[in-house]
């Protein structure tokens, strides 16, 4: 099966999925760019992990990052909500803007930034607390004290993350008692509860079975209407199924970024073609 054939098959799957959910327009995307990155270099101590990366992330779209292990996808993702700040000895040059504001400017409060740019990690990391407490944590630390409001937020977030039906009768149970897939959806709900504009997801489905993965992919499809989503994935079928844009990273360089359809059918660069046809990586 050639890459073209397999891709058109994926596109077909995707269309089927979208016809099922007919209520919603296929293209949610606008021309407005949400995030703009220009000439970004990133260093872990002496070691440079990202080289002169520039890209824009359009609003209300899904952008997927693909590339071989260690090429800097996670690092790049973390520069978008400054989670790299926590790692000691890191350094960055270049510019990242969120709706035109430089997020690395001196007067930017990272706490405010991370409220608008939420993140879901590869390994689900529920807090060792109840399901309710996990989802309510974000709004609570942001100052929401009203129990009624909190309950509303928790319910709405769990519904959006397609977890509500499964947990509504055991909100006070430990989150650690949930299955892996449920935990990952809980983490997504938790991120949604702070009401971000942008959702960064680092391989959110890598540890899940096909059924849970499909649920999370459906979920991303739903969320696209309201959120800008950036997702790292090792699974190229997944990237093709869910993303509007795909960016290919290789050894710290952004090799190519294009419409998903274009990148998978007519890649401009040789390296991209080699990677997506499975010739290396």
């Amino acid at each position: 099966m050639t890459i073209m054939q397999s891709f058109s098959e994926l596109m077909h799957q995707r269309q089927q999925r979208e016809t099922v959910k007919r209520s919603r327009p296929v293209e949610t995307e606008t021309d407005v760019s949400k995030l703009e990155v220009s000439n970004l270099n990133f260093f872990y101590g002496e070691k440079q992990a990202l080289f002169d990366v520039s890209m824009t992330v359009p609003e209300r779209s899904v952008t997927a990052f693909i590339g071989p292990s260690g090429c800097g996808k996670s690092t790049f993702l973390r520069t978008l909500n400054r989670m790299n700040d926590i790692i000691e000895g890191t350094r960055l040059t270049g510019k990242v803007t969120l709706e035109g504001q430089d997020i690395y400017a001196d007067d930017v409060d990272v706490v405010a930034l991370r409220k608008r740019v939420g993140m879901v990690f590869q390994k689900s990391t529920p807090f060792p607390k109840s399901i309710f407490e996990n989802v309510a944590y974000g709004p609570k630390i942001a100052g929401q004290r009203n129990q009624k409001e909190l309950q509303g937020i928790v319910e709405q977030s769990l519904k959006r993350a397609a977890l509500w039906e499964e947990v509504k009768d055991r909100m006070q149970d430990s989150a650690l008692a949930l299955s892996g897939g449920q935990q990952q959806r809980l983490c997504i709900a938790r991120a949604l509860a702070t009401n971000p504009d942008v959702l960064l997801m680092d391989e959110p489905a890598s540890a899940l079975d096909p059924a849970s993965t499909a649920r999370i992919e459906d979920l991303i499809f739903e969320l696209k209407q309201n959120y800008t989503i950036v997702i790292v994935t090792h699974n190229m079928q997944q990237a093709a199924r869910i993303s509007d844009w795909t960016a290919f990273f290789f050894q710290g360089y952004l090799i190519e970024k294009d419409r998903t359809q274009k990148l998978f059918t007519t890649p401009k660069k040789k390296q991209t073609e080699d990677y997506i046809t499975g010739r290396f990586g």
Partner: protein
Amino acid sequence: MSVSGNLREPALAKRHRIGQLFEWLCCGSTWFGMVVLALLLLSIGWKAMAWPTPDADAVDRAAATKTDAKVAASLSPRPLSARFLTSYDSRIPQKAGIKAALWGSLWLLVFVAITTVPVGVGAAVYLEEYSNEGRWKRIIQVNLSNLAGVPSIVYGILGLTVFVRMFGLFGHDGKVLDLNLGFAMLSLPLPFERSVISGALTLSLLVLPTVIVSAQEALRAVPSSIRNASYALGATQWQTIRHQVLPAAMPGIMTGVILSLSRAMGETAPLIMIGALTYLAKCPGKIDGVAAVWEHPTRLLEAPFDVFTSLPIQIFNWVSRAQPEYDHLAAAGIMVLLVVLMVMNTAAILIRNRFQRRTQW
């Protein structure tokens, strides 16, 4: 000649024998400790449960002084009895008890806990969560480990200079600061002299390094993914520590604190060094029960600055006396001390198990 694939290999049997021997040796080492401990407990317990059989001399002496029935009734039939817990030390062994020492130890425990927990946990949080890796942190870390190994008598000397005498800053007779707390007057003697507070502060210094190091380990054991998840939700560093890191580390911290407190309870040398009294027939602040506190609540403010004795000091005192009866009193005191320590250590284990079940990643 064995063929390859033979399931009965004589050379293997020898290797198995070596393994067996090793297992026996390890088992023996374990039981060696247990047997010694059991022997110790038995001999002490036996002593605590009966007075020494009087030799001929003592019988003569008793006959000579011919105690009447009333006095005889007030004497304890055994060293370890209910009366032992509720009477003060005495020149007559059969009347002596451990009350003053029990209350002294209780006061020490309370004040060591009050000073050690906030300072120890605070230092650990600073070192683990806030401070940057670097030369200073390494120097502090090495010093902490060294301090944990300094002999306790050295802390006694430190306590004597700093708390008991306060470097002689307040002259020969010292000063008394009268502070009005609104609801009561607090007379704060300076320096602290040989008071409960001097003892407690000295013991706090002694156990602080251990508390800090064990709290640090508990904090380090909290997975960084929990921290990252909290930060990613827009939590500040303080919120992350307060709501995620400290609750997750609490069982470990508590275990370290309780074990350190029980070590402080058993310390003798530094308290002797700072001059805790070896013979005392009153409790700190004259508080010997809830009733006393109820009637004179202001005594709670006096107790920390009162003289005191403690369980190990009382035991030390009895051991060093000549009459054989005191030897048995000491045994009874040791039993009481062991029970106190065992209760504390059990509490530490229970806390650890209880929380471990709740928080497993």
